């Protein structure tokens, strides 16, 4: 038996190089821009840059993306119509690979709108401007979706595992879940993110759960994108349901950076507030405290 020679290590290293010079997003649909312009109008998700906005990641500027879901049952997103039942600002700090998901109740009463969700009826640009004015956060991009394509997109990506926080049984939304991890298909995902009646805090709980869903989506993407080839497989599934004005080459950096963000490092923050009335409408009066300023600074709460 011969003695085995132990090699002397001269160098063992791993390196990653990503040109962080473009946009980044955070959910599984962040890979969507990879396919570029769909041009079909048959899209579940629209990703767009806010006019006049800029982001300079080389200066480690935080990135802010509005994530909007309308109550339109089917049809192309981003064309206006419908109210937003999902309203979020996702903030990313590229340097720290961490960030915040800010969740807004759809009935929030803000300047110019009795209920903020009405801002969507004139298109996502209007909603983004309303959120920018209200929070002071310089949102650079937005993502929009609606019911039917959202369901199909989730299904094509194999569902999303969500840690359901409590019992839900709500006929209007179709939510029927027990607490704990559960892999949701498209319809179940929609039900989970729509349910507001069988929740502890109604509209507040719904938007909080939507934030959980965004976190879960990011976790799914991150796990599956460990194989870089898998990112392009995602594209194939998302392609049919995507509309984007984001350049193709930028999207790779976006996807690679999204892969680096630890969902556990994404705080899920629902804006506090109280319910009341404005005229004859039941609304939520927000009490954000210093939340917006804290997040605006570096994307981290």
């Amino acid at each position, binding site marked *: 038996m011969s003695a085995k020679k132990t090699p002397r290590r001269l160098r063992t290293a791993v390196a990653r190089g990503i040109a962080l010079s473009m946009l980044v997003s955070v959910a599984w649909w962040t890979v969507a821009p990879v396919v570029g312009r769909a041009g079909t109008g048959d899209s579940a998700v629209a990703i767009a840059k806010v006019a006049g906005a800029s982001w300079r990641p080389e200066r480690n500027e935080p990135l802010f993306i509005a994530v909007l879901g309308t109550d339109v049952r089917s049809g192309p997103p981003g064309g206006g119509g419908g109210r937003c039942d999902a309203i979020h600002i996702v903030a990313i700090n590229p340097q720290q690979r961490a960030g915040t998901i800010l969740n807004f109740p759809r009935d929030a009463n803000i300047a110019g709108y009795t209920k903020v969700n009405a801002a969507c009826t004139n298109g996502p640009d209007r909603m983004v401007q309303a959120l920018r004015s209200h929070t002071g956060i310089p949102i650079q991009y937005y993502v929009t979706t609606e019911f039917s394509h959202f369901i199909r997109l989730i299904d094509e990506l194999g569902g999303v595992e969500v840690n359901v926080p409590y019992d839900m049984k709500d006929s209007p939304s179709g939510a029927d879940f027990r607490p704990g991890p559960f892999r949701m298909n498209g319809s179940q995902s929609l039900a989970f993110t729509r349910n507001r009646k069988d929740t502890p805090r109604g509209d507040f709980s719904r938007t909080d759960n939507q934030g959980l869903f965004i976190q879960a989506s990011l976790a799914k993407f991150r796990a599956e994108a460990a194989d870089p080839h898998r990112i*392009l497989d995602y594209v194939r599934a998302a392609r049919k349901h995507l509309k984007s004005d984001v350049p193709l080459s930028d999207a790779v950096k976006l996807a690679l950076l999204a892969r680096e963000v630890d969902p556990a490092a994404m705080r899920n923050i629902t804006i506090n507030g109280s319910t009341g009335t404005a005229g004859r409408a039941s609304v939520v009066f927000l009490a954000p405290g210093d939340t917006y300023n804290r997040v605006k600074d570096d994307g981290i709460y």
Partner: protein
Amino acid sequence: MAEVAEAAFQTGVVHLVDPLERPDSGEKAHAEVPRVIALLNSFYSSAFLDPAKWQGGLHPDLAPLFTAEAQPGAAGNLTNLAMSDLSDRIESVEPLRQTLDKVTFLVAEDGSVPIGVASVTFEATGKPAGDGPDVTITHTGHYWLQREGDEYKISAFEVSMNAAEGPDR
């Protein structure tokens, strides 16, 4: 002076992603492979196989193989991408394995192939300048490829570099 070995990557799996599932996409993707091989041959020649291109560990020929945005990242990671500081103790490098293990292309809506991902394994033996044991070099990597004109450039990378004296297995 030792003879300089040629970089000669062999192709493994060619995978393509065409959301529109057009019948000729496979053919189109395979037609792109030589461009990727050309890039890899240039890269590994400059990074490892051709001592004349090491230039004291600075590897100036590598930069043009990256997109402009990726060049700073490459320059800051030469110790993981190339011979770099090993170049002052190694005289030549003999390739053992040069494999493009898998390449995946994205076929865009207009039929172009603008993006790809290449997974690569490179193994070689470094011969020392003086007395001493050989150095076993194992370099694996995933390279994101971006089409620029008629060629691909590296827009992002994820590499693992292992160099050890003596046999590595």
